[in-house]
């Protein structure tokens, strides 16, 4: 065994209280094995990673043993730990955007651990760095050495970090949510890289993830964590095919990549609510990046949103889907083309008409914390559109607010709270209650579940589906996650580099995609290895 964790307990002290983050966890990893720790936020999975890496905060107290290369990691001093990191332990952090030093060139950041831990000369270390970057699949590795982190995309940066972690030939690699910040197609490649490394070089890999589908695709063993305990352990086939614990079953049922959820059938379409005709939106760039000084965010898109349907819009970051949503809502005007809402050109609306438009077309943002004023209470937030658009009698509004909060499944106990006192899912419910307060026809949801845990995602999706049915809403649902879109949309549009490459019924797109890019996206959805197994188990 490369790593053995025995009855690990970690408490965080907070004033006089202590919070138990990890409660008696025992695990082990063999050489070349990939072990995935799966759990939602607060399950203790990151605490385990930090305990292994010796990077727990001072407020943590640890009991139990973590044995690695003959040392008990829980008893090592900081100096002894420093010798183990690199040659023994490699770490891949969660966020590639903040984990590289922006002032140092990529080459130096990869070569540094090589020079620290091996007697290599400067030139030799540089050669090694090129090799490593090539091995982790970074194109043109030699040119990359001279570049700064800001010149690389998120996926490239994550590869640089992996190369840095591999530089000193570790025997154990700890990856904390290594692909959460990345697009699906990039995520697939990075995970493939990690799996190959484990197989070819016998490196043990500990992957921390919230995504059961990702874990099931790559890992040799899964450990499902809940409230600091391992509630289920086994091979992916065992855990996903025959989940023994109720928590695992809940997670499975909620995982959009694994479980195909029954989708409500579309109402018969009665005309178009929104028509987007040949719309292009260009932005002027500050300097050189594009050839002509303009960046085309949306490029000649034509589509329509039918009354009462849910149109899904998928694409990776930078594909122009959010810009398109802003054009539909009249927050931005197209450079070329026309957006019509209920037959009226959005771009030429005056102030009064636009206000009327915003009563009928509402937006739910990705980050529910940023979209709610931190100083207002839930009651005040939801009431604002009622006052703003003058809906209903003034003295009837408090009751209407309560009714709206009830509709989104929030109990009366939250009415007087502020956003900071709510959980992520509750915040998004408040944002949805605010959006339906004005009685809109169109609800634009821009990545509404991306910031939430899987089981909360499922609840919010159910809520949106229910509201759509009860209120007769038309939904424009934007997501980078095809699996999520599949569970809610009637039709799906796929965007790439500003263009709409495919638009069809959801089943057609998922089963008979016409465009290569769509096929690439579909292929990258995690959870394909055991998806069928889970669905069979679900129907049994």
């Amino acid at each position: 065994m490369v790593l053995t964790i025995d009855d690990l307990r970690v408490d965080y002290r907070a004033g006089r209280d202590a919070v138990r983050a990890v409660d008696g966890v025992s695990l082990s990893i063999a050489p070349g094995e990939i072990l995935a720790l799966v759990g939602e936020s607060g399950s203790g999975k990151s605490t385990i990673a930090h305990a292994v890496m010796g990077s727990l905060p001072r407020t943590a107290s640890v009991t139990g043993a973590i044995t690695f290369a003959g040392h008990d990691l829980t008893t090592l001093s900081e100096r002894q730990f420093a010798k183990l990191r690199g040659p023994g332990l490699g770490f891949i952090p969660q966020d590639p955007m903040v984990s590289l030093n922006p002032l140092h060139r990529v080459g130096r950041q990869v070569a540094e651990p090589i020079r620290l831990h091996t007697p290599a000369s400067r030139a030799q270390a540089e050669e090694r760095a090129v090799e490593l970057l090539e091995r982790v699949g970074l194109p043109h590795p030699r040119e990359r050495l001279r570049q700064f982190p800001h010149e690389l995309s998120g996926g490239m940066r994550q590869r640089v970090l992996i190369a840095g972690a591999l530089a000193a030939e570790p025997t154990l690699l700890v990856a904390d949510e290594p692909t959460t910040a990345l697009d699906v197609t990039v995520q697939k490649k990075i995970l493939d890289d990690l799996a190959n490394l484990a197989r070819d070089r016998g490196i043990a890999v500990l992957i921390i993830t919230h995504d059961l589908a990702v874990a099931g695709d790559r890992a040799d063993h899964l450990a499902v964590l809940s409230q600091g305990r391992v509630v289920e352990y086994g091979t992916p086939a065992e855990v996903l095919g025959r989940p023994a614990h109720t928590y695992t079953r809940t997670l499975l049922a909620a995982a959009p990549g694994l479980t195909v959820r029954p989708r409500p059938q579309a109402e018969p379409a009665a005309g178009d609510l929104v028509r987007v005709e040949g719309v292009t939106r260009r932005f002027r760039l500050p300097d050189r990046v594009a050839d002509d000084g303009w960046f085309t965010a949306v490029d000649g898109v034509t589509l329509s949103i039918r009354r009462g349907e849910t149109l899904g819009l998928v694409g990776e970051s930078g594909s122009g889907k959010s810009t398109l949503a802003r054009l539909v809502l009249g927050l931005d005007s197209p450079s070329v083309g026309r957006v019509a809402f209920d037959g009226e050109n959005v771009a030429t609306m005056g102030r009064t008409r636009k206000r009327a438009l915003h009563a009928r077309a509402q937006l739910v943002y990705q980050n529910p914390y940023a979209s709610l004023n931190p100083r207002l209470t839930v009651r005040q937030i939801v009431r604002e559109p009622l006052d703003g658009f003058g809906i209903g009698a003034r003295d009837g509004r408090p009751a209407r607010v309560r009714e709206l909060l009830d509709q989104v499944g929030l109990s009366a106990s939250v009415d007087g709270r502020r956003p900071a006192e709510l959980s992520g899912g509750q915040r998004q419910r408040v944002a949805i209650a605010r959006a339906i307060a004005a009685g809109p026809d169109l609800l634009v949801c821009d990545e509404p579940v991306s910031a939430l845990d899987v089981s909360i995602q499922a609840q919010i999706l159910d809520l949106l589906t229910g509201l759509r049915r009860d209120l007769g809403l038309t939904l424009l649902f934007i997501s980078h996650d095809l699996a999520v879109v599949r569970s809610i949309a009637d039709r799906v549009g796929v965007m790439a580099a500003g263009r709409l490459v495919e638009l069809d019924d959801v089943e057609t797109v998922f089963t008979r995609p016409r465009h290569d890019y769509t096929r690439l996206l579909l292929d990258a959805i995690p959870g394909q290895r055991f998806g069928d197994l889970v669905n069979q188990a679900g129907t049994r």
Partner: protein
Amino acid sequence: MSVIDSVRAVEFAPRLKRPSVRRVLRRPGLVLAWIVVAFVGVAAAFPGLLTSHDPLGKTGARLAPPSGEHLFGTDNLGRDLFARVVYGTAESVQAVLIAVVVGLVVGSLIGLVAGFVGRWVDDVLMRIIDVLLAVPTLLISLAFIAALGFGTVNIAIAVGIGNIASFARVMRSEVLRIKGTAFVEATTFAGIGRLRVLSRHVLPNAAGPVLVLATLELGLALLSVSALSFLGFGTPPPAPEWGSLVAAGRDYLLAAWWMATLPGLVIAATVLAANRIARSANRDHAVNF
């Protein structure tokens, strides 16, 4: 509603910590600062509670050193110096408050309008602020005193005008930050007017750092006001005022060190206390965001 009922939120929701007496007591410097400020407040409001001497009445003993009878000693005319400091507090505190309020109100208003309206309004207002910044604050104050005339209130207004620039710049940068947040953009979908967006969403969220700056400026304004009355632009004698007390003691620096030193120490202690409170307000504020 069955679907929605079954998905009622069951997540863990955080509860905010409220500051407790215990947490405050763990910072003795801060407690001391509040005690100093409390004393200054009592001296300004009820000077009779702290001393039984008359600030203008002569006691007989001239230039007597500090003693049990005269805590700060007596001056060249035999007046009790502690009583003069205590009775002078009201004048000084009033001047400081006027100075900070003038700077806060005018500066914040300029910053708010510049940041929220933007475009040419922003350009024009901020260039005026740049002009104010280009000239030393004390010089601006002197110019305004020359125009307004002598007196403590005029000094206070002049110091306040000198402070406008810093308030305007902090308020503008905060407004720009808040204006770019999603919750302000979301007000587009609430159908409310610009004025309501400003008063309900932008101002309350931008006000924090500006109010912290105001506590910091309390100390600086006290220094400026004292400096200007030390230079002789303040209240004419015999009425006591902190800055002029120091000025009066200047002629007796060798014969009676306490005349300039002790009022000077009172000024220093008050400035330090105000800064200490400003620092902690800044930190508590940072925790909230």
